[in-house]
């Protein structure tokens, strides 16, 4: 070791950052008695994971709300979609055409209400 040319530099580095002996004792003791902390963390993680799983299951299994009560119009309208446009022949012989712009906020499926305007 005595003839190691790097020894003086390494010694100088070590001495510059010499650790406080009280801090060393504290660190060693805390590390050796850290099992309780680890268990606490493990228990906390397990409880958190269970809570997340429970919440996700509750959301997934929650029954859907009742369908909105829409009074039937007394007529069935049969429409078709062409090039993104909804074309609905109306009983009075006119045709309602709607759509054309895909809206991001429109639900892909579910209940909805279509308002058709027009004179008789």
């Amino acid at each position, binding site marked *: 070791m005595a003839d190691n040319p*790097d020894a003086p530099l390494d010694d100088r580095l*070590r001495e510059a*950052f010499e650790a406080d002996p009280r*801090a060393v004792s504290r*660190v060693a003791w805390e*590390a050796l008695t850290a*099992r309780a902390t680890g268990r606490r963390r493990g228990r906390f993680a397990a409880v958190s994971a269970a809570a997340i799983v429970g919440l996700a299951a509750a959301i997934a299994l929650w029954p859907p709300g009742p369908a909105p009560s829409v009074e039937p119009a007394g007529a069935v309208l049969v429409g078709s979609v062409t090039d993104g446009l909804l074309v609905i022949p109306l009983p009075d012989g006119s045709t309602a055409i709607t759509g054309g712009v895909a809206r991001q906020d429109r639900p892909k499926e579910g209940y909805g209400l279509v308002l058709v305007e027009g004179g008789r």
Partner: protein
Amino acid sequence: MGGQGSSVIVDLERTIAELAPRVLRYANARLGDPALAEDVAQESLAALVRACRNGGAPDSAEAFVFAIARRRAGRASWRRRLWAPLELALSARSDAPSPEARAIALDESAHVRAALARLSSRDREAILLVAIGGLSMADAAAALGLSLSAVKMRVSRARTRLAALLEARHG
């Protein structure tokens, strides 16, 4: 089994006692904050204790502890950078040293830290592990995830540059 268990505990205590000053010195050099360094050293050693007690003792306790210390010191450094502007805005803590006290404390440690700061982060990391942490080249290579020759090259380059920087300060 009981005898084996107690010998493992004695070995673990001995290992912790041997590693504690080294990893604390490394964390202190890396972070420049004794309180933060203590946290990093403690968490790294506690990870080794947990691994050993859970039957997953690593091949090299030194490489294991220093790899964790390195990662945690990096995270602590980032957290401190994020919080530093807020602490400055709130005038920091009242027990912080005054500018005069800080100027007086510009001792050997500060000179060495300033020289280390001028190394590239890769070279600095290598020499901190080997010279200050006291890791063998092989353990440093494992902790850094590098080949042995790459670590040797980085340490050699860091030593040469650091020696020149410290010499220049004294000259």
